[in-house]
């Protein structure tokens, strides 16, 4: 679906997606739009399958153009035998498009939306329902399913409901006089998807945060973190959470830090330069050993950059920003599953180590629409680390327990303001065990070492990156018998799902490809990577940034240099077909250059 922002492509997309999911299809929704409210060219693409898919193709079977700009701009994206559905009266395709239509056997349908609206006495806003209904009939879907779906929205507005139903009847029964009845065949449905959720990464993250016990949310609007703020705010009357739209990112970060110091679980989210403003607070929390969680939703920079597009350029920012040396943790969500699962994990890590955890996401995850199995609500624990709450134990505490430099693993006891116990100062100046300022050499060393010592325990406790292997069969598993890996790809974040869809493609069937996915990015574990690297013919880094930032961290950690990189930094996510073709190229050249292509080298000694 393409059209101007505000024209209704999102509502058509959302209804069709939900309808198809209920019919038993896995739907993956992808939005492109400019940073504008009205006008500008926007799109809402649905990729549909009866198997699990989590990526988008560059090409489409059906193009719905709500204005003539779509006819000008998006024709190239049509597949062989595709269908164009448009509403522009008397549109004459230019010569090169007529050629394209002929070559690709594209069928063009003009849908006379204004005529039908006039006949029904309906307002322009209902054109979306008409179009949706026609699309629905083209997809051979049941009209009653659409009616019940639309009915849910207008259940309380009877007059509107009736008009909507008439529009559905009209749209559904429309037949193009030239093309006749057109049917776009879908594979047989898998009813298992019907009970799934249709959810964005932001909604998944919001649900995960509530699940994790977050009771206060403070944020400042900035795409692509704003949908999380909106979702949490929409739920506030049900969750009874404190939700604060702060006056800036510094405030949001400080409110959340104050709330965490007091002992609740609190969350904030931002993007790029908003996170710059939060970074001083990251440093503060390191010094006062205050557990905190920050969501950094990435978009292309520098500066305002491309506000409504995607990127993975924030990894080094998350891992390195802010004053001084301290232990922090950086993790990244990859899709709607771990956007939920990682929220309790992030808060547990923050409280276990009394550190800040930065959770990376990106615009693609934040706004993509996933078909998601309902979440397991029993899996997560709430682990508050060395938090003392027992009244007897509180009574026994000394002020100097709070920042005791000799505490095991550098993690000292923590107790909350308002507890009947000895008090302490959460001191941003260098301080002694009870939080009194102490600039002596001895104390400075002890406290620095205390805070940095957490790094070792944190790193040892984090999971290794996750390995996915293609071409695995039940009988002979090439990976387990020690075969050489043809291509080892390394990635993180939203790249992972696309790569895994690519690995499952028919074109790569039987190839010995392994994909190593990093969720825990700092501290970075490289043992598994180094082991796999030794048995790989070729290694490639797959990232959505210019420098190959994960590659830089890998090299910094273990010396492994990965010069072969598939990088993308144009604000678009990796598309399935695009990534597939570059992976096929890599595999082909690996076979050709078996003798002389090491693909990687060690730049230094490993740690």
């Amino acid at each position, binding site marked *: 679906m393409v059209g101007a922002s505000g024209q209704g492509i999102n509502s058509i997309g959302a209804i069709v997606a939900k309808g198809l999911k209920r019919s038993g299809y896995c739907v993956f929704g992808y939005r492109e739009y400019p940073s504008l409210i009205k006008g500008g060219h926007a799109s809402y693409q649905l990729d549909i399958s009866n198997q699990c898919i989590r990526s988008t193709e560059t090409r489409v079977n059906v193009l719905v153009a709500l204005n003539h700009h779509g006819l000008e701009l998006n024709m190239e994206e049509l597949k062989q035998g595709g269908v164009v559905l448009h509403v522009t009266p008397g549109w004459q395709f230019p010569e090169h498009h007529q050629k394209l239509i002929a070559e690709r056997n594209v069928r063009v349908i003009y849908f006379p939306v204004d005529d039908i609206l006039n006949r029904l006495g309906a307002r322009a806003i209902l054109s979306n329902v008409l179009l949706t209904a026609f699309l629905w009939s083209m997809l051979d879907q049941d009209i009653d399913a659409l009616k019940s779906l639309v009915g849910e929205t207008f259940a309380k507005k009877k007059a509107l409901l009736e008009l909507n139903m008439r529009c559905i009847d009209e749209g559904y029964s429309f037949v193009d006089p030239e093309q006749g009845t057109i049917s776009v065949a879908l594979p047989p449905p898998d009813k298992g998807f019907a*009970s*799934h*959720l*249709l*959810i964005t990464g932001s*909604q998944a993250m919001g*649900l995960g945060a*509530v*699940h994790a*016990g977050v*009771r*206060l949310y403070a944020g400042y609007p900035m795409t692509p973190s704003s949908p999380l703020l909106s979702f949490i705010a929409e739920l*506030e*009357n*049900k*969750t*009874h*959470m*404190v*939700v*604060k739209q*702060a*006056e*800036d990112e*510094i*405030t949001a970060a*400080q*409110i959340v*830090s*104050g*709330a*965490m*110091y*007091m*002992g*609740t*679980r*609190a969350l904030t989210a931002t993007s790029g330069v908003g996170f710059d403003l939060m970074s001083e*607070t990251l440093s*503060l929390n390191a010094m006062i050993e205050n557990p905190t969680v920050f969501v950094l939703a990435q978009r292309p920079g520098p500066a305002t950059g491309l506000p409504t597009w995607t990127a993975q350029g924030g990894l080094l920012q998350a891992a390195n920003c802010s004053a001084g040396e301290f232990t922090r943790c950086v993790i990244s969500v990859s899709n709607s599953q771990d956007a939920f699962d990682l929220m309790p994990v992030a808060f547990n890590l923050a409280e276990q180590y009394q550190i800040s955890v930065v959770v990376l996401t990106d615009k693609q995850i934040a706004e993509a629409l996933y078909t998601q199995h309902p*979440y397991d*609500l029993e899996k*997560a624990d*709430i682990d508050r680390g060395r938090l003392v709450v027992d009244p007897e134990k509180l009574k026994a505490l000394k002020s100097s327990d709070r920042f005791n430099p000799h505490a095991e693993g550098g993690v000292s006891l923590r107790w*909350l*303001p*308002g*507890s*009947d116990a*000895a*008090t*302490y*100062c*959460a*001191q*941003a100046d260098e*301080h002694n065990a009870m*939080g*009194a*300022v102490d600039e002596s050499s001895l104390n400075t060393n002890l406290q620095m070492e205390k805070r940095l010592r957490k790094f070792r325990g944190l790193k040892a406790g984090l999971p290794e990156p996750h390995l996915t292997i293609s071409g695995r069969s039940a009988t002979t598993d090439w990976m387990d018998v020690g075969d050489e890996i043809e291509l080892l790809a390394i990635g993180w974040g939203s790249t992972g799902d696309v790569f895994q869809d690519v690995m499952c493609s028919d074109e790569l069937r039987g190839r010995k490809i392994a994909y190593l996915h990093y969720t825990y990015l700092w501290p970075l574990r490289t043992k598994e990577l180094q082991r796999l690297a030794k048995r790989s013919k070729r290694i490639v880094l797959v990232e959505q940034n210019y420098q190959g930032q994960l590659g830089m961290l890998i090299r910094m950690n273990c010396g492994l240099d990965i010069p072969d990189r598939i990088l993308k930094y144009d604000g678009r996510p990796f598309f399935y077909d695009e990534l597939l073709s570059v992976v096929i190229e890599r595999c082909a050249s690996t076979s050709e250059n078996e003798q002389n292509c090491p693909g990687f080298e060690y730049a230094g000694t490993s740690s």
Partner: protein
Amino acid sequence: MNIALQTRLPALSEYYSETKCIWCDGCGNYGIWTAVRYALVELNLHPWQVCLCYDVGCHGNGSDKIEGYRFHGLHGRVIPFAAGAKLANMKVPVIAFGGDGATFSEGIGHFVHGVRSNYPITFVLHNNTNYGLTTGQASSLTPQGQPMNTSPNGIPEHTLASMDLIFSLNPTFVARGFSGDIKLMTRILKAAIQHRGFAFIEMLQACPTYNHFATHEYLLDRYFDANADGHDPSNLQQAKALATQVQDRIACGILYQCQDTPHFYDRLIPRQGVETTCVEEVRRYDVSEYWKELV
């Protein structure tokens, strides 16, 4: 503020800290520090029952000279941190302290929104009319033309009319104290801590090292207790006049108080009828009800 009735009344010594005070002789911080301890004790608050948040500056170096759950943070940021702490646990009185530099330069946005939000916290402005800790630079409250460190010819900017600014934000509590009158400051602090909303107290404070224009003697000659003179804190117009007109005499005491404006937390619809605090509510939540609409 909720103050639980205690069977054992706190003693002033409970607030005693072994850390030695390092302020200059004659610094106004000694008086404010003393008044804070008196006020807390007189309100029957033990150190473990209070949260004291300090900004960066000479006053902030007092964060380890008193007992209580304390926080000493980053320059200019104390108000949002203190607000977050309070919103997380409404049962603990939260008092924030900040200097004129932090409050009216680096953190002026936080201050404006703090008053506007009417967070249920007490904010004590240590106003010594300069940046003491960074060796006597002009703040935005230093008189224009006054030579200071880094501005030997005096600052070219206008002096910020802080009280005019505050009254433009519809405050619910405005008071002024003087570091030379502990009894007056104690009275103001007690009223502020008991106030339901953002209680702003300006403490006029001597800085013998860097402030040679509004000295202890200067302030001593001019200050007076406006309440003792019959000023009614509910009189907004008179309060504004007393707050802003400080050329001849400086009105101290509780200048303005509005008791019937709900504070930030009371305005949160989702929290109405909720008896617990956010701190007490941390647990794993079943969120399946919230995803029903997504199926």
